[in-house]
């Protein structure tokens, strides 16, 4: 489960600091589905980066599955990202020179899995998102929706307990966006905790719980 307690994030700018997050408290049990909404610059991406162990808060405590992340080494955080967290980004962030299957394999490579096992797991993950027939295609040969599905396959290939989705439908048309959300919803139904960032009400409605952030604070639950 996720537990955030008084999370603040400040960035130094020139002589002063700018505050991106000022005192965020969130409790999200395993299997939860939380949508974080808010306008641009509200701090929701910063929050997601902290949740994903990509960034470290200035103060406050963040515990993931009972492990407090702040004091962990970079190596340990990389381990958490690899095994316990899956990312889905707005602009997919697939490596353009790797095929869909190879992109899905990446987290397994950093896990140290051998090639044959990797291929099988990647194929399974692609099947789960309905893209078995596109596994050899390069991202450039896929539509936006297909690319995002590859990214979701990559996010779930290591069977993480938490999937973080940063505006996953932001670059997609409504119909495709809905398809993607259905996949995330299904993933959540199978027990994976999902945190979704969006500024669209319709997308947030897929979540079990919605949170509005404004100016680095929780505006309403």
């Amino acid at each position, binding site marked *: 489960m996720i537990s955030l307690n008084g999370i603040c994030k400040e960035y130094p700018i020139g002589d002063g600091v700018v505050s991106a997050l000022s005192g965020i408290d969130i409790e999200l049990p395993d299997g939860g589905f939380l949508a974080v909404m808010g306008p641009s610059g509200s701090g929701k991406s910063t929050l997601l980066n902290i949740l994903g162990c990509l960034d470290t808060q200035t103060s406050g405590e963040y515990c993931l599955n009972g492990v407090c992340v702040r004091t962990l080494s970079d190596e340990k955080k990389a*381990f958490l990202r690899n095994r316990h967290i899956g990312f889905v980004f707005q602009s997919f*962030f697939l490596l353009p020179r790797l095929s869909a299957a190879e992109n899905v394999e*990446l987290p397994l490579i*950093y896990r140290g899995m051998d090639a044959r096992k990797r291929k099988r797991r990647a194929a399974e993950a692609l099947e789960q998102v309905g893209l078995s027939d596109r596994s050899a295609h390069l991202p450039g040969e896929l539509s936006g929706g297909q690319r995002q599905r590859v990214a979701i396959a990559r996010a779930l290939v290591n069977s993480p307990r938490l999937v973080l989705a940063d505006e996953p439908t932001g670059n997609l048309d409504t119909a495709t966006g809905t398809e993607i959300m259905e996949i995330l919803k299904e993933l959540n139904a199978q027990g994976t905790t999902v945190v979704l960032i969006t500024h669209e009400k319709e997308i947030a409605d897929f979540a079990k719980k919605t949170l509005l952030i404004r100016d680095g604070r929780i505006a309403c639950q």
Partner: protein
Amino acid sequence: MSMKPTDSLKISLSEMRRNTMRTVLTILGIVIGIAAMIAVFSVGQAGKERIKEELNNFGINRVWILPNIASGEDGGLKVADAEYIKDKVQGVAAVCPADYKMASVESKNASAQCDIMGTNEVVTRTQKTVMAEGRHLSAADAEYGRKVAVLSSKAKGELFGDMDAVGQNIDIMGISFSVIGVEEEVSVVYDEFFLGKCYIPLTVYESMFKDDRLSEISVVAADSGNVASVAKKSQQILNRKYGEDAVKVINLSSEMKNADNIMNIFTLVLAAIAGISLLVGGIGIMNIMLVSIKERTREIGIRKALGATGRDILWQFLFESALYAAAGGGIGVITGCFITVVAAQVIGLTIRLGALPIVVSVAFATGVGLVFGILPAKKAASMDPVEALRHE
């Protein structure tokens, strides 16, 4: 749990294949450096071998004993001294007395200035002798005072041209000699500077020139290990006989050491120049790696988000620069071997390409790649994932 090295390698390889032109330009400096390295070392080595061969022709186990003219002693060496050395010095294989003077030699059709060498049959054992035709001096020639002569191929050419010399007569200071053999010239490199040689029995020589002093006594040590002790002992007993500083001894081991030193310095200077090219090549790789990392900032961010540790990223880029350098090294070795073979043809040296310089060169190039790859790889490894992902 960490990434497998083979996977690291695969990622680096595919990156190199992606941009062939850039890869070629990146490794060019290393190629040139390694090619130069290989060429310098193999040609240098061949030069050394050649010098050694030349010196061996004169006799590397040979000690020359000469009267020390500078000391003012004029007792001179005598034939008896040769016997004396043979009796008193241990580890001597052969002793050959010789005296030489320049004189005019005439054949039926030509005449030439030659070094007249008065010596005996032992000469074939103290210096490398290859007969082109006929035979060399024998013990009987000296014993019976036969008027026979052996010409060096140069002297034969000057006196007889292409005609047969063996069986013909030549004339030295009004005395007729029968030519019994022709020997191949010992030194081939500097033969322009030497006169042709004409060997005659020492007994005949001494009565002709009315002189029993010798120009030199050649002593051959039985074993190359005791050349120095033979030289020292011979000098000692002769100095005891004739007085302090009466004779000096020369042997080629010090000459060989000098020649070796000169070649080594020469090789090292050229190698240093090749080394600078390698250095420039290494900087070239570093430069490309820095550009490449800048270009691939987002990729690094993505890999980190998916669980790559700093060390995984470090190895990925370190492998890449090492591979650039190793590929450059490999192509450099091929180019270097090619240059060496061409140089061998042009200069006329016999060149053996050893495995060692090749292995060392490739290892060295890879080392250069690693050293110059560390800075860019560290830079990539320490990138902040959030910043990297935001990078356009």
